[in-house]
Protein backbone atom coordinates (compact mmCIF):
# COMPACT_ATOMS: atom_id res chain seq x y z
CA UNK A 1 0.00 0.00 0.00
CA UNK A 2 1.41 3.29 -1.03
CA UNK A 3 -0.14 5.81 1.34
CA UNK A 4 0.91 8.80 -0.71
CA UNK A 5 -1.11 7.96 -3.82
CA UNK A 6 -4.03 10.16 -4.58
CA UNK A 7 -7.43 8.86 -3.57
CA UNK A 8 -10.77 10.33 -4.60
CA UNK A 9 -11.96 10.22 -0.99
CA UNK A 10 -9.37 12.80 0.00
CA UNK A 11 -11.07 15.44 -2.12
CA UNK A 12 -13.67 15.80 0.60
CA UNK A 13 -11.14 17.10 3.14
CA UNK A 14 -10.89 20.75 2.00
CA UNK A 15 -14.66 21.01 1.71
CA UNK A 16 -15.29 19.61 5.18
CA UNK A 17 -12.58 21.89 6.55
CA UNK A 18 -14.25 24.88 4.89
CA UNK A 19 -17.74 24.00 6.15
CA UNK A 20 -16.54 23.40 9.69
CA UNK A 21 -14.54 26.64 9.81
CA UNK A 22 -16.97 28.97 8.08
CA UNK A 23 -20.40 27.47 8.64
CA UNK A 24 -20.39 25.50 11.89
CA UNK A 25 -17.81 27.51 13.84
CA UNK A 26 -19.55 30.87 13.18
CA UNK A 27 -22.82 29.39 14.43
CA UNK A 28 -21.12 28.13 17.60
CA UNK A 29 -19.62 31.57 18.11
CA UNK A 30 -23.10 33.06 17.74
CA UNK A 31 -24.42 30.78 20.47
CA UNK A 32 -21.43 31.75 22.64
CA UNK A 33 -22.06 35.47 22.12
CA UNK A 34 -25.76 35.00 22.77
CA UNK A 35 -25.15 33.41 26.15
CA UNK A 36 -22.47 35.80 27.36
CA UNK A 37 -22.52 39.48 28.24
CA UNK A 38 -20.19 42.16 26.88
CA UNK A 39 -17.32 41.12 29.15
CA UNK A 40 -17.51 37.41 28.32
CA UNK A 41 -19.33 36.15 31.42
CA UNK A 42 -21.99 33.50 31.07
CA UNK A 43 -25.35 35.18 31.15
CA UNK A 44 -28.91 34.31 30.24
CA UNK A 45 -29.96 37.91 30.60
CA UNK A 46 -30.08 38.76 26.91
CA UNK A 47 -32.10 35.64 26.26
CA UNK A 48 -34.57 36.31 29.04
CA UNK A 49 -34.75 39.92 27.96
CA UNK A 50 -35.91 38.83 24.50
CA UNK A 51 -38.70 36.66 25.85
CA UNK A 52 -39.88 39.10 28.52
CA UNK A 53 -39.67 42.36 26.58
CA UNK A 54 -43.08 43.04 24.99
CA UNK A 55 -41.36 44.89 22.13
CA UNK A 56 -39.19 41.98 20.97
CA UNK A 57 -41.99 39.49 21.56
CA UNK A 58 -44.21 41.76 19.46
CA UNK A 59 -41.56 41.56 16.71
CA UNK A 60 -41.61 37.78 16.89
CA UNK A 61 -45.41 37.71 16.65
CA UNK A 62 -45.41 40.24 13.78
CA UNK A 63 -42.82 38.13 11.87
CA UNK A 64 -44.94 35.03 12.34
CA UNK A 65 -48.10 36.84 11.17
CA UNK A 66 -46.29 38.10 8.06
CA UNK A 67 -44.70 34.71 7.36
CA UNK A 68 -48.00 32.81 7.72
CA UNK A 69 -49.91 35.30 5.56
CA UNK A 70 -47.27 35.39 2.83
CA UNK A 71 -46.92 31.60 2.81
CA UNK A 72 -50.68 31.03 2.57
CA UNK A 73 -51.14 33.57 -0.25
CA UNK A 74 -48.14 32.16 -2.14
CA UNK A 75 -49.57 28.65 -1.77
CA UNK A 76 -53.01 29.78 -2.92
CA UNK A 77 -51.46 31.16 -6.12
CA UNK A 78 -48.62 28.70 -6.71
CA UNK A 79 -50.62 25.51 -6.05
CA UNK A 80 -53.12 25.90 -8.92
CA UNK A 81 -50.47 27.40 -11.21
CA UNK A 82 -48.06 24.51 -10.63
CA UNK A 83 -50.88 22.00 -11.07
CA UNK A 84 -51.95 23.49 -14.40
CA UNK A 85 -48.31 23.65 -15.56
CA UNK A 86 -47.74 19.99 -14.65
CA UNK A 87 -51.09 18.34 -15.38
CA UNK A 88 -53.42 20.79 -17.08
CA UNK A 89 -53.69 22.70 -20.32
CA UNK A 90 -50.06 23.83 -20.20
CA UNK A 91 -48.45 20.48 -19.39
CA UNK A 92 -46.94 20.12 -22.85
CA UNK A 93 -45.41 23.56 -22.90
CA UNK A 94 -42.21 23.43 -20.91
CA UNK A 95 -41.73 27.04 -21.93
CA UNK A 96 -44.38 28.25 -19.47
CA UNK A 97 -42.63 26.71 -16.48
CA UNK A 98 -39.51 28.55 -17.62
CA UNK A 99 -41.21 31.94 -17.63
CA UNK A 100 -42.69 31.31 -14.19
CA UNK A 101 -39.32 30.63 -12.62
CA UNK A 102 -37.38 33.18 -14.70
CA UNK A 103 -37.91 36.06 -12.21
CA UNK A 104 -35.78 34.08 -9.70
CA UNK A 105 -32.76 35.10 -11.74
CA UNK A 106 -33.46 38.82 -11.67
CA UNK A 107 -32.06 40.65 -8.66
CA UNK A 108 -34.82 40.87 -6.05
CA UNK A 109 -34.13 44.49 -5.07
CA UNK A 110 -34.64 45.52 -8.70
CA UNK A 111 -37.87 43.52 -8.91
CA UNK A 112 -39.17 45.08 -5.69
CA UNK A 113 -38.26 48.51 -7.11
CA UNK A 114 -40.41 47.75 -10.15
CA UNK A 115 -43.32 46.63 -7.99
CA UNK A 116 -42.92 49.66 -5.77
CA UNK A 117 -43.18 52.05 -8.72
CA UNK A 118 -46.45 50.42 -9.81
CA UNK A 119 -47.89 50.39 -6.29
CA UNK A 120 -47.01 54.07 -5.92
CA UNK A 121 -49.08 54.89 -8.99
CA UNK A 122 -52.02 52.82 -7.70
CA UNK A 123 -51.97 53.91 -4.06
CA UNK A 124 -50.26 57.29 -4.37
CA UNK A 125 -48.71 57.02 -0.90
CA UNK A 126 -47.14 53.68 -0.03
CA UNK A 127 -46.75 54.54 3.65
CA UNK A 128 -50.52 54.38 4.11
CA UNK A 129 -50.72 50.59 3.78
CA UNK A 130 -47.38 49.27 5.04
CA UNK A 131 -48.67 45.82 6.04
CA UNK A 132 -50.58 45.14 2.81
CA UNK A 133 -47.69 46.41 0.68
CA UNK A 134 -45.19 44.24 2.54
CA UNK A 135 -47.37 41.20 1.94
CA UNK A 136 -47.72 42.02 -1.78
CA UNK A 137 -43.97 42.66 -2.03
CA UNK A 138 -43.01 39.38 -0.40
CA UNK A 139 -45.53 37.36 -2.41
CA UNK A 140 -44.14 38.99 -5.55
CA UNK A 141 -40.59 38.19 -4.47
CA UNK A 142 -41.10 34.59 -3.29
CA UNK A 143 -43.79 33.26 -5.65
CA UNK A 144 -41.38 31.86 -8.30
CA UNK A 145 -39.51 29.92 -5.60
CA UNK A 146 -42.70 28.12 -4.61
CA UNK A 147 -43.76 27.05 -8.08
CA UNK A 148 -40.75 24.82 -8.75
CA UNK A 149 -41.08 22.36 -5.80
CA UNK A 150 -44.86 22.12 -6.31
CA UNK A 151 -44.39 21.52 -10.03
CA UNK A 152 -41.92 18.71 -9.27
CA UNK A 153 -44.39 17.13 -6.83
CA UNK A 154 -47.18 17.25 -9.40
CA UNK A 155 -45.10 15.74 -12.21
CA UNK A 156 -44.28 12.80 -9.91
CA UNK A 157 -47.97 12.39 -9.10
CA UNK A 158 -49.38 9.49 -11.09
CA UNK A 159 -52.28 10.75 -13.23
CA UNK A 160 -53.91 7.32 -13.12
CA UNK A 161 -54.51 7.87 -9.39
CA UNK A 162 -56.61 10.92 -10.21
CA UNK A 163 -58.47 9.01 -12.91
CA UNK A 164 -59.02 6.05 -10.58
CA UNK A 165 -60.51 8.41 -8.01
CA UNK A 166 -62.88 9.83 -10.62
CA UNK A 167 -63.85 6.38 -11.91
CA UNK A 168 -64.69 5.33 -8.38
CA UNK A 169 -67.15 8.19 -8.19
CA UNK A 170 -65.24 11.06 -6.57
CA UNK A 171 -66.33 14.54 -7.69
CA UNK A 172 -63.76 17.26 -8.43
CA UNK A 173 -63.66 18.51 -4.83
CA UNK A 174 -63.25 14.99 -3.46
CA UNK A 175 -60.51 14.24 -5.99
CA UNK A 176 -58.71 17.35 -4.80
CA UNK A 177 -59.04 16.74 -1.07
CA UNK A 178 -58.72 12.94 -1.04
CA UNK A 179 -56.25 12.29 -3.86
CA UNK A 180 -54.30 15.31 -5.08
CA UNK A 181 -53.74 17.13 -1.78
CA UNK A 182 -52.51 14.11 0.25
CA UNK A 183 -50.17 13.04 -2.56
CA UNK A 184 -48.68 16.50 -2.90
CA UNK A 185 -47.89 16.98 0.81
CA UNK A 186 -44.09 16.56 0.40
CA UNK A 187 -44.17 19.19 -2.37
CA UNK A 188 -46.19 21.55 -0.18
CA UNK A 189 -43.75 21.10 2.69
CA UNK A 190 -40.70 21.91 0.59
CA UNK A 191 -42.53 24.85 -1.01
CA UNK A 192 -43.42 26.22 2.42
CA UNK A 193 -39.83 25.96 3.63
CA UNK A 194 -38.74 28.01 0.60
CA UNK A 195 -40.96 30.90 1.69
CA UNK A 196 -41.67 30.82 5.43
CA UNK A 197 -38.20 31.57 6.76
CA UNK A 198 -37.32 34.27 4.20
CA UNK A 199 -40.64 35.92 5.04
CA UNK A 200 -39.58 36.10 8.71
CA UNK A 201 -36.16 37.52 7.97
CA UNK A 202 -36.12 39.44 4.67
CA UNK A 203 -36.42 42.93 6.09
CA UNK A 204 -35.29 44.63 2.90
CA UNK A 205 -38.75 44.17 1.40
CA UNK A 206 -40.26 45.85 4.48
CA UNK A 207 -37.81 48.73 4.34
CA UNK A 208 -38.42 49.29 0.65
CA UNK A 209 -42.19 49.30 1.27
CA UNK A 210 -41.80 51.92 4.04
CA UNK A 211 -42.97 49.46 6.68
CA UNK A 212 -41.30 50.66 9.86
CA UNK A 213 -42.47 47.73 11.99
CA UNK A 214 -39.69 45.25 12.74
CA UNK A 215 -39.50 41.56 11.85
CA UNK A 216 -36.86 39.18 13.24
CA UNK A 217 -34.41 40.02 10.45
CA UNK A 218 -34.72 43.76 11.10
CA UNK A 219 -33.67 43.19 14.72
CA UNK A 220 -30.39 41.60 13.56
CA UNK A 221 -29.94 44.45 11.10
CA UNK A 222 -30.42 47.11 13.75
CA UNK A 223 -28.18 45.39 16.32
CA UNK A 224 -25.55 45.07 13.57
CA UNK A 225 -25.69 48.81 12.87
CA UNK A 226 -25.36 49.61 16.58
CA UNK A 227 -22.47 47.11 17.02
CA UNK A 228 -24.49 45.20 19.64
CA UNK A 229 -23.01 41.78 18.87
CA UNK A 230 -24.44 40.03 21.92
CA UNK A 231 -28.06 40.94 21.29
CA UNK A 232 -27.67 40.34 17.56
CA UNK A 233 -26.38 36.87 18.40
CA UNK A 234 -29.35 36.23 20.67
CA UNK A 235 -31.74 36.88 17.78
CA UNK A 236 -29.62 34.74 15.42
CA UNK A 237 -29.51 31.92 17.97
CA UNK A 238 -33.29 32.06 18.43
CA UNK A 239 -33.79 31.95 14.65
CA UNK A 240 -31.30 29.09 14.47
CA UNK A 241 -33.24 27.06 17.03
CA UNK A 242 -36.44 27.83 15.16
CA UNK A 243 -34.87 26.68 11.86
CA UNK A 244 -33.50 23.51 13.47
CA UNK A 245 -36.90 22.66 14.91
CA UNK A 246 -38.66 23.27 11.57
CA UNK A 247 -36.10 21.13 9.71
CA UNK A 248 -36.51 18.24 12.14
CA UNK A 249 -40.30 18.50 11.93
CA UNK A 250 -40.40 18.64 8.13
CA UNK A 251 -37.92 15.77 7.79
CA UNK A 252 -40.08 13.78 10.19
CA UNK A 253 -43.25 14.64 8.27
CA UNK A 254 -41.73 13.67 4.90
CA UNK A 255 -40.22 10.49 6.29
CA UNK A 256 -43.34 9.25 8.07
CA UNK A 257 -45.28 10.04 4.91
CA UNK A 258 -42.88 7.94 2.86
CA UNK A 259 -43.10 5.10 5.36
CA UNK A 260 -46.86 5.15 5.35
CA UNK A 261 -47.04 5.08 1.57
CA UNK A 262 -44.61 2.14 1.53
CA UNK A 263 -46.72 0.19 4.02
Amino acid at each position, binding site marked *: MNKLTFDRKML*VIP*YVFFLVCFVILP*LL*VIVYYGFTDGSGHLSFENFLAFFTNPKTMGTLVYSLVIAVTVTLICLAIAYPVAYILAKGEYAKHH*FFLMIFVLPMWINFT*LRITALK*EILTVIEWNLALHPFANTIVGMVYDFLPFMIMPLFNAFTKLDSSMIEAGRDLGANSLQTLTKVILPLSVPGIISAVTMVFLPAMTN*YVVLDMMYNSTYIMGSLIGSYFSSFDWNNGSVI*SAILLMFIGLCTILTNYAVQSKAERSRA
Partner: protein
Amino acid sequence: MRKYVEHAVIWLALAFLYLPILILVFYSFTDSTMIGSVRGFSLQNYVTLFTEPELLQMMLGTFTLAIGVAVISTLLGTMGAIGAFHAKKTTRTVVEFLNEVPIVNADVVTGFSVCILMIVLFHMDKDTYIPLVVAQTALCAPFVYLSVTPRLKMMDGALYEAALDLGCTPTQALFKVILPQIMPGITSGFMTAITLSLDDYFITTYTKPATFDTISTYVVNATRGSQTSIKTALWALSTVIFVIVIGIVVGMNMNSVKQEEE
Protein backbone atom coordinates in the same frame (compact mmCIF):
# COMPACT_ATOMS: atom_id res chain seq x y z
CA MET B 1 -65.21 25.88 -18.81
CA ARG B 2 -62.36 24.22 -16.93
CA LYS B 3 -60.05 25.15 -19.76
CA TYR B 4 -60.92 28.85 -19.50
CA VAL B 5 -60.34 28.83 -15.75
CA GLU B 6 -56.90 27.31 -16.31
CA HIS B 7 -56.00 29.93 -18.93
CA ALA B 8 -57.23 32.69 -16.64
CA VAL B 9 -55.18 31.45 -13.66
CA ILE B 10 -51.99 31.18 -15.69
CA TRP B 11 -52.32 34.54 -17.40
CA LEU B 12 -53.35 36.42 -14.25
CA ALA B 13 -50.36 35.00 -12.38
CA LEU B 14 -48.07 35.93 -15.28
CA ALA B 15 -49.52 39.44 -15.34
CA PHE B 16 -48.79 39.81 -11.62
CA LEU B 17 -45.19 38.64 -12.09
CA TYR B 18 -44.40 40.50 -15.29
CA LEU B 19 -46.47 43.69 -15.50
CA PRO B 20 -44.29 45.63 -13.03
CA ILE B 21 -41.11 44.62 -14.87
CA LEU B 22 -42.56 45.34 -18.32
CA ILE B 23 -43.88 48.75 -17.28
CA LEU B 24 -40.46 49.58 -15.86
CA VAL B 25 -38.83 48.44 -19.11
CA PHE B 26 -41.15 50.76 -21.03
CA TYR B 27 -40.43 53.76 -18.79
CA SER B 28 -36.68 53.16 -18.88
CA PHE B 29 -36.81 54.36 -22.51
CA THR B 30 -38.50 57.68 -21.64
CA ASP B 31 -37.35 60.82 -19.90
CA SER B 32 -40.06 60.50 -17.23
CA THR B 33 -38.90 60.52 -13.64
CA MET B 34 -42.08 58.87 -12.40
CA ILE B 35 -44.22 56.03 -13.66
CA GLY B 36 -47.53 57.38 -15.00
CA SER B 37 -46.28 60.67 -16.40
CA VAL B 38 -45.51 59.94 -20.04
CA ARG B 39 -43.01 62.24 -21.69
CA GLY B 40 -40.76 61.68 -24.69
CA PHE B 41 -38.55 58.82 -25.82
CA SER B 42 -35.06 59.05 -24.41
CA LEU B 43 -31.97 56.90 -23.97
CA GLN B 44 -30.63 59.14 -21.21
CA ASN B 45 -31.05 56.41 -18.57
CA TYR B 46 -28.83 54.07 -20.55
CA VAL B 47 -26.24 56.78 -21.09
CA THR B 48 -26.18 57.45 -17.33
CA LEU B 49 -26.01 53.74 -16.56
CA PHE B 50 -22.94 53.21 -18.70
CA THR B 51 -21.11 56.47 -18.04
CA GLU B 52 -21.68 57.29 -14.36
CA PRO B 53 -18.50 55.99 -12.66
CA GLU B 54 -20.32 55.09 -9.44
CA LEU B 55 -22.77 52.84 -11.32
CA LEU B 56 -20.08 51.29 -13.52
CA GLN B 57 -17.94 50.50 -10.51
CA MET B 58 -20.90 48.95 -8.70
CA MET B 59 -21.82 46.73 -11.66
CA LEU B 60 -18.23 45.68 -12.27
CA GLY B 61 -17.77 44.92 -8.56
CA THR B 62 -20.95 42.84 -8.43
CA PHE B 63 -20.03 40.70 -11.42
CA THR B 64 -16.38 40.26 -10.44
CA LEU B 65 -17.46 39.16 -6.97
CA ALA B 66 -20.09 36.78 -8.39
CA ILE B 67 -17.61 35.14 -10.77
CA GLY B 68 -14.91 34.86 -8.11
CA VAL B 69 -17.28 33.37 -5.57
CA ALA B 70 -18.75 31.01 -8.16
CA VAL B 71 -15.30 29.73 -9.19
CA ILE B 72 -14.25 29.05 -5.60
CA SER B 73 -17.64 27.53 -4.73
CA THR B 74 -17.56 25.30 -7.79
CA LEU B 75 -14.07 24.04 -6.95
CA LEU B 76 -14.88 23.36 -3.31
CA GLY B 77 -18.36 21.99 -3.89
CA THR B 78 -17.29 19.68 -6.73
CA MET B 79 -14.32 18.33 -4.79
CA GLY B 80 -16.57 17.81 -1.79
CA ALA B 81 -19.16 15.99 -3.84
CA ILE B 82 -16.65 13.64 -5.52
CA GLY B 83 -14.87 12.96 -2.24
CA ALA B 84 -18.03 12.38 -0.23
CA PHE B 85 -19.48 10.14 -2.93
CA HIS B 86 -16.56 7.71 -2.64
CA ALA B 87 -16.09 8.01 1.10
CA LYS B 88 -17.57 5.79 3.80
CA LYS B 89 -21.28 6.08 4.49
CA THR B 90 -20.77 7.77 7.86
CA THR B 91 -18.47 10.39 6.31
CA ARG B 92 -21.05 11.00 3.61
CA THR B 93 -23.86 11.43 6.15
CA VAL B 94 -21.77 13.97 8.07
CA VAL B 95 -20.88 15.92 4.92
CA GLU B 96 -24.51 15.90 3.79
CA PHE B 97 -25.58 17.26 7.17
CA LEU B 98 -22.93 20.01 7.11
CA ASN B 99 -23.90 20.82 3.54
CA GLU B 100 -27.55 21.21 4.50
CA VAL B 101 -26.87 23.80 7.22
CA PRO B 102 -26.25 26.90 5.05
CA ILE B 103 -29.08 25.85 2.72
CA VAL B 104 -31.78 25.76 5.39
CA ASN B 105 -30.28 28.62 7.39
CA ALA B 106 -31.53 32.18 6.93
CA ASP B 107 -29.12 34.36 4.92
CA VAL B 108 -29.30 36.97 7.67
CA VAL B 109 -27.96 34.47 10.19
CA THR B 110 -25.29 33.11 7.83
CA GLY B 111 -24.00 36.61 7.09
CA PHE B 112 -24.16 37.80 10.68
CA SER B 113 -22.41 34.68 12.02
CA VAL B 114 -19.50 34.97 9.60
CA CYS B 115 -19.26 38.67 10.49
CA ILE B 116 -19.09 37.82 14.20
CA LEU B 117 -16.43 35.13 13.71
CA MET B 118 -14.12 36.85 11.24
CA ILE B 119 -14.61 40.54 11.89
CA VAL B 120 -15.63 40.79 15.54
CA LEU B 121 -13.76 37.84 17.04
CA PHE B 122 -10.65 37.66 14.82
CA HIS B 123 -10.56 41.39 13.93
CA MET B 124 -10.13 40.65 10.25
CA ASP B 125 -10.13 43.69 8.01
CA LYS B 126 -13.35 43.91 5.95
CA ASP B 127 -11.43 45.77 3.23
CA THR B 128 -9.53 42.59 2.32
CA TYR B 129 -12.81 41.24 0.86
CA ILE B 130 -11.94 37.92 2.50
CA PRO B 131 -14.94 37.86 4.87
CA LEU B 132 -17.26 38.76 1.98
CA VAL B 133 -15.91 36.06 -0.36
CA VAL B 134 -15.81 33.45 2.39
CA ALA B 135 -19.36 34.19 3.55
CA GLN B 136 -20.81 34.10 0.03
CA THR B 137 -18.89 30.89 -0.72
CA ALA B 138 -20.39 29.34 2.42
CA LEU B 139 -23.81 30.01 0.88
CA CYS B 140 -23.01 28.98 -2.72
CA ALA B 141 -20.75 25.91 -2.43
CA PRO B 142 -23.47 23.70 -0.87
CA PHE B 143 -25.68 24.33 -3.91
CA VAL B 144 -22.84 23.24 -6.21
CA TYR B 145 -22.48 20.08 -4.09
CA LEU B 146 -26.20 19.41 -4.52
CA SER B 147 -26.10 19.80 -8.28
CA VAL B 148 -22.98 17.63 -8.78
CA THR B 149 -24.03 14.70 -6.56
CA PRO B 150 -26.90 13.44 -8.79
CA ARG B 151 -24.50 13.35 -11.77
CA LEU B 152 -22.08 11.17 -9.79
CA LYS B 153 -24.93 8.79 -8.98
CA MET B 154 -25.78 8.53 -12.69
CA MET B 155 -22.16 7.81 -13.63
CA ASP B 156 -20.98 4.30 -14.41
CA GLY B 157 -18.45 3.51 -11.67
CA ALA B 158 -16.71 0.86 -13.80
CA LEU B 159 -15.38 3.55 -16.14
CA TYR B 160 -13.01 4.91 -13.50
CA GLU B 161 -11.75 1.41 -12.69
CA ALA B 162 -11.33 0.71 -16.40
CA ALA B 163 -9.27 3.87 -16.81
CA LEU B 164 -7.00 2.80 -13.94
CA ASP B 165 -6.65 -0.70 -15.40
CA LEU B 166 -5.71 0.80 -18.76
CA GLY B 167 -2.85 2.63 -17.09
CA CYS B 168 -4.26 6.01 -16.09
CA THR B 169 -3.03 7.52 -12.88
CA PRO B 170 -5.87 8.39 -10.45
CA THR B 171 -5.36 12.08 -11.23
CA GLN B 172 -5.63 11.46 -14.98
CA ALA B 173 -8.72 9.32 -14.41
CA LEU B 174 -10.27 12.15 -12.40
CA PHE B 175 -9.68 14.75 -15.09
CA LYS B 176 -10.29 12.59 -18.17
CA VAL B 177 -13.06 10.30 -16.96
CA ILE B 178 -14.95 11.64 -13.96
CA LEU B 179 -14.95 15.37 -14.69
CA PRO B 180 -16.27 15.18 -18.28
CA GLN B 181 -19.14 12.99 -17.11
CA ILE B 182 -20.26 15.25 -14.28
CA MET B 183 -19.67 18.45 -16.28
CA PRO B 184 -23.39 19.30 -16.69
CA GLY B 185 -23.79 19.20 -12.90
CA ILE B 186 -20.73 21.39 -12.43
CA THR B 187 -21.98 23.92 -14.98
CA SER B 188 -25.43 24.19 -13.46
CA GLY B 189 -23.86 24.46 -9.99
CA PHE B 190 -21.65 27.27 -11.26
CA MET B 191 -24.68 29.09 -12.70
CA THR B 192 -26.61 28.67 -9.44
CA ALA B 193 -23.64 30.07 -7.51
CA ILE B 194 -23.51 33.11 -9.80
CA THR B 195 -27.22 33.87 -9.40
CA LEU B 196 -27.11 33.37 -5.63
CA SER B 197 -24.19 35.77 -5.35
CA LEU B 198 -25.85 38.34 -7.65
CA ASP B 199 -29.11 38.18 -5.68
CA ASP B 200 -27.58 38.29 -2.22
CA TYR B 201 -28.21 41.28 0.00
CA PHE B 202 -27.85 40.14 3.61
CA ILE B 203 -24.55 38.27 3.55
CA THR B 204 -23.01 41.11 1.56
CA THR B 205 -24.26 43.78 3.98
CA TYR B 206 -22.74 42.10 7.01
CA THR B 207 -19.34 41.29 5.53
CA LYS B 208 -18.58 43.85 2.77
CA PRO B 209 -16.03 46.65 2.92
CA ALA B 210 -17.76 49.94 3.78
CA THR B 211 -17.10 51.54 0.39
CA PHE B 212 -17.97 48.51 -1.73
CA ASP B 213 -21.47 48.02 -3.12
CA THR B 214 -23.18 45.25 -5.06
CA ILE B 215 -26.32 45.81 -7.10
CA SER B 216 -28.49 44.74 -4.14
CA THR B 217 -26.93 46.97 -1.51
CA TYR B 218 -26.67 49.84 -3.99
CA VAL B 219 -30.34 49.65 -5.01
CA VAL B 220 -31.52 49.56 -1.40
CA ASN B 221 -29.48 52.68 -0.60
CA ALA B 222 -30.48 54.42 -3.82
CA THR B 223 -34.19 53.97 -3.12
CA ARG B 224 -33.68 55.68 0.24
CA GLY B 225 -31.98 58.61 -1.44
CA SER B 226 -33.63 61.15 -3.71
CA GLN B 227 -31.28 61.30 -6.69
CA THR B 228 -33.73 60.83 -9.56
CA SER B 229 -31.14 60.39 -12.32
CA ILE B 230 -29.68 57.41 -10.43
CA LYS B 231 -33.15 56.07 -9.68
CA THR B 232 -34.20 56.05 -13.33
CA ALA B 233 -30.80 54.71 -14.43
CA LEU B 234 -31.60 51.69 -12.25
CA TRP B 235 -34.71 51.16 -14.38
CA ALA B 236 -32.34 50.82 -17.32
CA LEU B 237 -30.24 48.36 -15.32
CA SER B 238 -33.38 46.27 -14.60
CA THR B 239 -34.12 46.25 -18.33
CA VAL B 240 -30.60 45.15 -19.22
CA ILE B 241 -30.64 42.33 -16.64
CA PHE B 242 -34.14 41.28 -17.73
CA VAL B 243 -33.02 41.02 -21.36
CA ILE B 244 -29.86 39.09 -20.44
CA VAL B 245 -31.82 36.62 -18.29
CA ILE B 246 -34.40 36.09 -21.05
CA GLY B 247 -31.57 35.55 -23.53
CA ILE B 248 -29.94 32.90 -21.32
CA VAL B 249 -33.22 31.13 -20.58
CA VAL B 250 -34.34 31.08 -24.22
CA GLY B 251 -30.87 29.93 -25.25
CA MET B 252 -30.92 27.10 -22.70
CA ASN B 253 -34.44 26.16 -23.79
CA MET B 254 -33.48 25.99 -27.46
CA ASN B 255 -30.39 24.00 -26.58
CA SER B 256 -32.39 21.41 -24.65
CA VAL B 257 -34.95 21.18 -27.47
CA LYS B 258 -32.09 20.55 -29.89
CA GLN B 259 -30.63 17.87 -27.64
CA GLU B 260 -34.02 16.17 -27.41
CA GLU B 261 -34.29 16.15 -31.18
CA GLU B 262 -30.88 14.56 -31.52
